[in-house]
């Protein structure tokens, strides 16, 4: 028996049952958002460092990027109902499907990052310099397409945030990339990237929640709420530490860790908010009736 006392359907819904199906995605997806986004920001960062001749920083950044794009496919595949069919993503090129485009972006940037890393760290294929700049486009795409991916669904908390989510994810990517590189001793540029990202993410999420209005509710309630609050706290703390004590190794490490955790928490809260808003029919009914 689902709801004890009621014997009649409520006038504004069918026994309070969800109208939408909850997403079937599992934990791998938000984690992928984190790693993919990090890679997407780390790669151009590395490329720029390379251009500026800072081979040490470039190497560190390339490695961060490589780690990101390295784990991403594993996460995606493990989320599939039919993992052996991952390659079906690349059967077609389908602009109307952010996931399809995304998988092309991921594979392309993945290959380039891999090659670029090999070149910069192991000194292989020296002539690769010509393609490396491609990550200047592919990287940011990798960091932001995920915003479109979730927004291009019927889930109110995602779809209605379609203009902000790419910003949230872009900022988060910068923050996590910066932090990760800083963690590996990336120095001032990395710290600056991390702090810029942190500022950006705080701004973007706040803006998103304000614009969502009542539909923003899920971001304040339940699990999503917890993670949203946690992420803000972590980011503020992380940014403070990074700014104050970033010069010291320990400070950089602590700050970076906090920021990374913050970035992950944000993605988790976005992920959860989607489920929460799909579960309650009022998020579908009210805006649609108002819109009529």
């Amino acid at each position: 028996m689902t709801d004890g006392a009621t014997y009649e359907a409520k006038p504004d819904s069918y026994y309070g049952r969800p109208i939408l199906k909850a997403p079937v995605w599992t934990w791998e997806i938000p984690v992928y958002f984190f790693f993919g986004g990090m890679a997407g920001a780390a790669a151009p960062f590395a490329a720029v460092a390379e251009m500026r001749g800072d081979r040490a920083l470039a190497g560190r950044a390339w490695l961060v990027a490589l780690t990101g794009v390295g784990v991403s496919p594993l996460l995606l595949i493990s989320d599939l109902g039919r993992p052996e069919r991952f390659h079906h993503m690349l059967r077609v090129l389908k602009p109307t499907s952010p996931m399809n485009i995304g998988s092309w972006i991921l594979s392309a940037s993945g290959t380039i990052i891999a090659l670029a890393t090999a070149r910069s760290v192991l000194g292989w294929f020296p002539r690769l310099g010509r393609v490396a700049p491609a990550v200047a486009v592919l990287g940011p795409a990798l960091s932001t397409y995920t915003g479109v991916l979730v927004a291009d669904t019927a889930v109110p908390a995602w779809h209605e945030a379609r203009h902000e989510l790419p910003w949230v994810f872009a900022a988060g990517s910068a923050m996590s990339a910066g932090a990760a590189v800083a963690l590996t001793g990336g120095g001032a540029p990395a710290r600056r990237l991390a702090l810029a990202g942190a500022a950006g993410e705080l701004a973007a999420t706040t803006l998103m929640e304000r614009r969502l209005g009542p539909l923003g509710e899920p971001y304040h309630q339940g699990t999503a709420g917890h993670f949203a609050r946690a992420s803000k706290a972590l980011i503020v703390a992380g940014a403070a530490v990074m700014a104050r004590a970033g010069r010291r190794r320990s400070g950089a490490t602590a700050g970076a860790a906090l920021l990374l955790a913050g970035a992950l928490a944000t993605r988790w809260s976005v992920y959860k908010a989607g489920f929460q808003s799909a579960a309650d029919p009022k998020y579908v009914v009210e805006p649609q009736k108002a819109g009529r």
Partner: protein
Amino acid sequence: MGSNMAENHPVGFQWVVEAQKRGAKLFHVDPRFTRTSALADRYVPVRAGTDVAFLGGIVHYILETDSAFLDYVIPYTNASTIVSDDFRDTEDLDGLFSGWDPETRTYDPDSWQYEDMQVAAASGQRELGAPTGQAAHGAHGGALEHGEPPHYDETLQHPRCVYQLLRKHFARYTPEFVEDTCGVPREALLEVCEALCENSGRERTSALCYAVGWTQHTVGVQIIRTASIIQLLLGNIGRPGGGILALRGHASIQGSTDIPTLYDILPGYLPMPSALAHSSLEEYVEQNSPQTGYWANMGAYTVSLLKAWWGDAATKENDFCFGHVPRLTGDHSYYTTLRGMVEGRVKGFFVMGENPSVGAANGRFNRKAMRNLDWLVVRDFVEIESAAFWYDAPEIETGEVRPQDIATEVFFMPGATHVEKKGSFTNTQRLLQWREQAVEPRGDCRSELWFMYHLGRLVREKLAGSTEPRDRAVLDLTWDYPTEGEHAEPDADAVLREIGGVDLTTGKEVPDYLPLKDDGSTACGCWIYAGCYADGVNQVARRKPGHEQSWVAPEWGWAWPMNRRILYNRASADAEGRPWSERKRYLWWDAEQGKWTGEDVPDFKPDMAPDYRPPEDAHGPEALRGDEPFTMQSDGKAWLYAPAGLVDGPMPTHYEPHESPFPNALYPSQHANPARQQIRLEENRYNPSHGEPGAEIFPYVATTYRLTEHHTAGGMSRWVPHLAELQPEMFCEVSPELARERGLEHGEWMTVITMRSAIEGRVMVTERIPVLEVGGRRVHQVGLPYHWGSRGLVTGDSANDVVGLALDPNVHIGEYKALTCDVRPGRRPRGPALLALVEDYRRRAAEAGVSEPSPTEVHP
């Protein structure tokens, strides 16, 4: 009314929806708001068990507002017939008709007869089967013994003419009375009355649909009688769009009354001979056939049947083997037979296409009876409760009995489904349709036909050479059906041909029942089916699409008798033989050609002119006038008043159900139907009813019914995953008010208790169960679907474990639709604690003064 057509005849209901789309108005009168009510133009709530009162209210309205269709009523019904002055009405005798014998609790119907006319009941009490529209056939009517016609008063003024008797009898069925008894708001009743009257007459007709919501009462037959009175007064019988439509049960339940699985009739509603009265064929025919009407040819029907069964062995000399036909020695109906088992007189039992452990009222009684058998044969698809009763039953759970103590030897034989065998179905409108075999039965599954044929073959082999006279009945049978296929399946076509009848002199199939003779020159397995194999063609298998033939579609299947689609269709024309109206033209007299023509096969002598008047010495159909359409009746008229054929009165009377929390508002001294059949056994305790001490212990009305998602006792649905999941658990429907009163929580559990037992179900609180205002207080009704049992994919308690047995005296159908009960929140106790709970209620009843039943006391 008394039917939940949308849920229980969904495929048939498409035509109701079709009619609504063409402007028909649909009323649904039911204690519950059902899926039928949801589609109805008007839903009218009614207290279970008060239909005679409700319908009587309609009769009252028709008579008091002079709304009867007199041009129809006067010539076609017995409204003008004058009744013997020995007759006394319930209004004179405070709830009893004349002829009541308090000793035997039975009526002597002699005083009910027409003036100066001896109407002998055709064959006393007769089984009409579960819900059936064939009452007029079952009760053959009587014989005009000395020729002169009964007295009439066509002005309907004579105080003893049927019309005036009706007025007197129904005078007190006022809207106020109906409201107070049925809980029906009087506006609602009047709305129904007005709609019915407006929609009847020359230009329009109305139909009444019913099913077991009407039959499963101690007054079941009288409810349907009341409906007949309404339809006759309004001229809605024998006309297109009219009638009283019995929506029957199992796919061929109609067929199983035409060619009966019932104990007291032979094929074609011929009465079963009685051991005492009918030593010879002559006696039997003499006493059972009237001189007038089509039943006058009963001799021909009987002899043809005997020839079909015993072939060459049946000769004029040996009375056509009439001696071989089993005889009745009394009431051998189902529940009487169960008592025989409990008392050890009945030792063996075949259960074929039935699951009585769940489906039959008072499950405990049924299972106790089966525990007492030597052997039991169950033929079914799955091991139903009735086959597993010896190790899986409530009594085993409570520890009352242990499997090792049960001696009954159970033989389970897998049955073939309807797609695994060919044969015919006879549906509710007497239409026979042929079904081809789709697939071979799996494994050991076999058809009924196979089982019966080979069982007979083996028995005959065992008896071969016997000189015992008693074995002749079996050995003389024509048991020679051709078989086909690897399983030696008898050819169903051959059986149908035997039923359809042959002329033995030519070897040709008969075209209909008219050529049947009583000299042994014709053989016919069921006279009303005569002609279903005419010209050697399986007429039943015809499937000509409707759009390729007339709207009556005579070439789809075959309807008995004589492929007639509307019975008594002579009544669709006026006395002079002209259609009542252009809109309703169906059958009319063509003077030029000197015959009846129209859309259908005339249910009348095809060349008998409307102005025909029988000569003195006339016999059979010729003894009826050309303006008397009801040719099965000895007086050719439809009976508003039944001078014979019923055991509980010539006119319907409101009585409370056997178990009821209310007094009889009309006749306080006659609570329930005086002639009802009661089974006062330890195994069949009754709840104290109103007026008896302890009645307040069981304050609520309960009724039982079906759901679309399941089929009856569940053998065909609880084992089918896609059906089982649709209604996975037993539930009880109660109003929000009762839920509050007794602390029942929607979706939780509740327990229902009677003197028989206690069951549990999930609580379904719903406004669809109306709370009614009766006798100045609010009455709560508890709705119990009866589909669940202890086996299958979805299991639950059986409603029938709490239902008791009080029966209609005419047809022995139990009152499953109206009983009393108590309810409490929560699940029922398990194990012995269940018995303790029921015992506690019995103790309270005993303390209140309910007398313990003596084990043998049975009425009548």
